[in-house]
């Protein structure tokens, strides 16, 4: 557990980075610090591993007052992932991942073996082991950064905007990976981001920071969305918060229908489609590839696979209403594609069913206020 | 020995005349200035061309390194024996010394100007000459003057050796002193040339600061423009 007890950070120039912060981060929780730049979220996180020392107040990690722990010793027990990964450019991937272990005094050989395991755990191809960071893509570098933080198996993980510099597709991948890792490892994670969507997707608890380093709300992601504590949080969460809150509403009651499919292999010789019908094209593993209608079918001979209309976003079985709605809205056929965890086709959801589920949900979400404990420091609300 | 030195410097007669300190100083500065001027005539256009077009960078680096290795004393003595002139050989050797730092300064200055600024200038419709003279040159000035500073340092130091091939300058004191076993005179020469180098280096360091773009240290205050700005924007209320 990590606790902040009336922690204030004043910089030499007089600005207040963090103002009287008190909060508790439970063991095994995924806590996201979110807020605009200059709100003290990063400063707060960096005080946990003494990259910055507070001006006033006490921080404890696992019951120990960290001001009594040597910074290097403290840091060796806390994993740290930063934006752009911060890898050592002169070390190979495996040696980068082994860094903390070697610093802890583990022999190089043993450290490398553990590092290779950590690489596999975060989904890195072992062939990358002997490459230098410059030979990796941004997303791969970020994975190496996560592997380095996890290699020594620290109980606490600090992540400073780790996915901000990668493109949205890779970010989505990394976020999913992070959730998977957390479900396996149950670390105490403190994650800093300015992206409220990322905060809500990843965090089981979200701490919203405001200008001047004042904590505005500390709550579950859903509570921050549905019951913002003050106008600042409302504003940060934004006008789409109603839509975003669909992320917390299950869509399992929305029926999945069968859909007409065409195999990708024999696309040219498929029977002609009816004028307004759409068919889903799937590959040999039944993974959807794209949509086809009569107009586009006429182009297949000339353009091949490029004639297909894009799939739109995909939905998964444990899907939320937001995913389902998005799948429906982004599909050219007005039907959202549902796939299993391996990406194989399960069926489609239809717009009418999703809308019906939406109105059913709206009737039932007004009375769950008591379930989600709001623990924001009340003096922060102003 | 230091007392002898002080006495020598304190005696006014040692300053005047064709072999006096002042004249030696003028000679020394003269050789240096001449060599720097010729060096600049060669290096500046070349550096501008290479910096602006980005062609021939490899040649510059190679040339600068080779010329750095070329010993001035050797070049000087060799040329004296070949052409029996007193002035041209030492100046040539000094020019060879001045060109690499000047060239590197001009080239690096131009090449380091932010390419997006140059692109913007081109997009606004400036000709290549206008880009070179109005955009690249002003932004390159600190590095160009930096190159001049390096060149000056080396040329002033090495001009001392010109006395070895029977020229004047402050080196005279060192060589005459060595020949006459008059160590005071040797020290005098060493001291004077060091002082000269330090003063010139300090002055040029100051110039480097002055020519930093955007600091306004070089600009004369445009009162008309300031008035126009004041008219349009009433003084901000002090809240």
């Amino acid at each position, binding site marked *: 557990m990590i606790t902040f007890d009336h922690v204030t950070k004043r910089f030499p120039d007089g600005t207040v980075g963090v103002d009287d912060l008190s909060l508790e981060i439970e063991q095994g929780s995924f806590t996201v610090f979110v807020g605009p730049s200059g709100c003290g979220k990063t400063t707060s996180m960096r005080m946990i591993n003494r990259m910055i020392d507070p001006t006033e107040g006490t921080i404890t990690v696992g019951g120990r007052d960290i001001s009594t722990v040597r910074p290097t010793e403290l840091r060796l027990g806390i994993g740290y992932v930063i934006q752009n990964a911060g890898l050592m450019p002169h070390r190979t991937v495996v040696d980068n991942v082994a860094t903390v272990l070697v*610093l802890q005094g583990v022999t190089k050989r043993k450290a490398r073996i553990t590092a290779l395991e950590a690489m596999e755990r975060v989904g890195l191809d072992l062939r990358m082991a002997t490459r230098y960071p410059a030979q990796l893509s941004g997303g791969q570098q970020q994975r190496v950064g996560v592997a380095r933080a996890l290699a020594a198996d620290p109980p606490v993980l600090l992540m400073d905007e780790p996915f901000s510099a990668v493109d949205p597709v890779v970010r989505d991948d990394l976020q999913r990976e992070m959730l998977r890792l957390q479900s396996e490892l149950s670390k105490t994670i403190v994650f800093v981001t300015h992206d409220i969507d990322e905060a809500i997707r990843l965090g089981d608890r979200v701490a919203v920071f405001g200008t001047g380093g004042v904590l505005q709300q500390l709550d579950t992601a859903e509570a921050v969305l549905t019951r913002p504590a003050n106008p600042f949080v409302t504003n940060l969460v934004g006008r789409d918060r109603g839509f975003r809150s669909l992320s917390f509403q299950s869509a399992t009651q929305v029926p999945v229908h069968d859909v007409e499919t065409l195999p990708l292999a024999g696309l040219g010789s498929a029977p002609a489609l009816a004028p307004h019908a759409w068919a889903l094209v799937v590959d040999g593993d039944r993974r959807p590839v794209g949509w086809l209608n009569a107009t586009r079918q006429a182009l297949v001979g000339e353009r091949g696979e490029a004639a297909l209309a894009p799939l739109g976003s995909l939905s998964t079985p444990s899907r939320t209403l937001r995913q389902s709605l998005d799948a429906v809205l982004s599909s050219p056929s007005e039907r959202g594609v549902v796939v299993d965890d391996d990406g194989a086709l399960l069926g489609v959801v239809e717009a009418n069913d999703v809308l019906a589920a939406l109105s059913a949900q709206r009737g039932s979400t007004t009375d769950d206020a008591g379930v989600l404990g709001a623990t924001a420091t009340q003096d922060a609300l102003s | 020995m230091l007392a002898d030195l002080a006495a020598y410097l304190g005696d006014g007669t040692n300053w005047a005349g064709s072999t006096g300190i002042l004249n030696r100083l003028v000679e020394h500065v003269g050789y240096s200035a001449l060599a720097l001027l010729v060096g600049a005539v060669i290096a500046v256009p070349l550096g501008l061309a290479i910096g602006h077009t980005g062609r021939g960078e490899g040649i510059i680096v190679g040339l600068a390194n080779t010329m750095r290795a070329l*010993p001035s*004393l050797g070049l000087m003595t*060799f040329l004296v024996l070949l052409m029996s002139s007193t002035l041209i050989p030492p100046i040539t050797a000094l020019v060879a010394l001045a060109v690499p730092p000047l060239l590197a300064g001009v080239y690096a200055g131009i090449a380091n100007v932010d390419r997006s600024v140059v692109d913007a200038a081109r997009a606004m419709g400036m000709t290549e000459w206008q880009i070179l003279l109005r955009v690249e040159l002003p932004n390159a000035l600190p590095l160009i003057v930096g190159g001049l500073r390096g060149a000056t340092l080396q040329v002033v130091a090495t001009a001392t050796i010109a006395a070895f091939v029977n020229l004047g300058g402050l080196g005279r004191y060192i060589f005459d002193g060595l020949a006459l076993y008059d160590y005071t005179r040797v020290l005098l020469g*060493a001291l004077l040339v060091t002082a000269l180098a330090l003063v010139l280096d300090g002055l040029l360091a100051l110039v480097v600061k002055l020519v930093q773009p955007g600091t306004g240290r070089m600009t004369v205050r445009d009162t008309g423009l300031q008035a126009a700005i004041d008219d349009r924007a009433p003084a901000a209320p002090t809240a």
Partner: protein
Amino acid sequence: MNLWGIRNWEAVQPLLVQHLYLSVVPTLIGVVVAIPIGLLLRDRRRARTVAVVLSSAIFTIPSLALFVVLPLLLGTRVLDPINVVVALTLYTVALSVRTTFEALDAVPAATREAATAVGYSSWRRATAVDLPLAIPVLTAGTRVVAVTNVSMVSVGAVIGIGGLGQLFTTGYQRDFPEQILTGLVLILLVAIVFDRIIALVGRAFTPWIRGASLRASERRLRALAQALPEVGRLREVVSGAR
């Protein structure tokens, strides 16, 4: 090399040896002294400023002046080669301290920060992160210093200790240009060889620049799999990669 130098090799050889000694020794000592100074002072603002100002001042002193003044300060004889060694070492330290600062400044701040955050102590970071990453700039700076030293040694000839530079003074006095030419050619050769050697040493110590090809990493991967036979997955990957 021209004919004079070959005919008179017995006379030239000791000068060449002296030249090598006078240029290599100060370069090595100077760099070895400058790097720790640079590492120690880089983050101390005031000390660093003093070091920079002091080194520019040293570098401003003309070499000939330094050669003739040093005996007074060191109590050596005017014709002692040690004067030249000390003078060139001073220049090398002066230049290399500044180069070290620049080289360390070129290490990305994010990398240094990340090293601190994962638990490097400051001295360990200095030697294991900052120093290796500074090698490319350090190498470039050392090449310049070395070549300058090789050329500067010859100035010592006017006070009788200049290695190959003595070919200039005696050639000049004897009105014998061929002898001077021999000196020029040999000095250029020494400079080029010295420059190449330093470049190669720099390359050898920066495998992440040299070995950043996929071929090289596949090679390292096979070596790693051999070194760690207990990691079965690594063996599989290697045999799959062939």
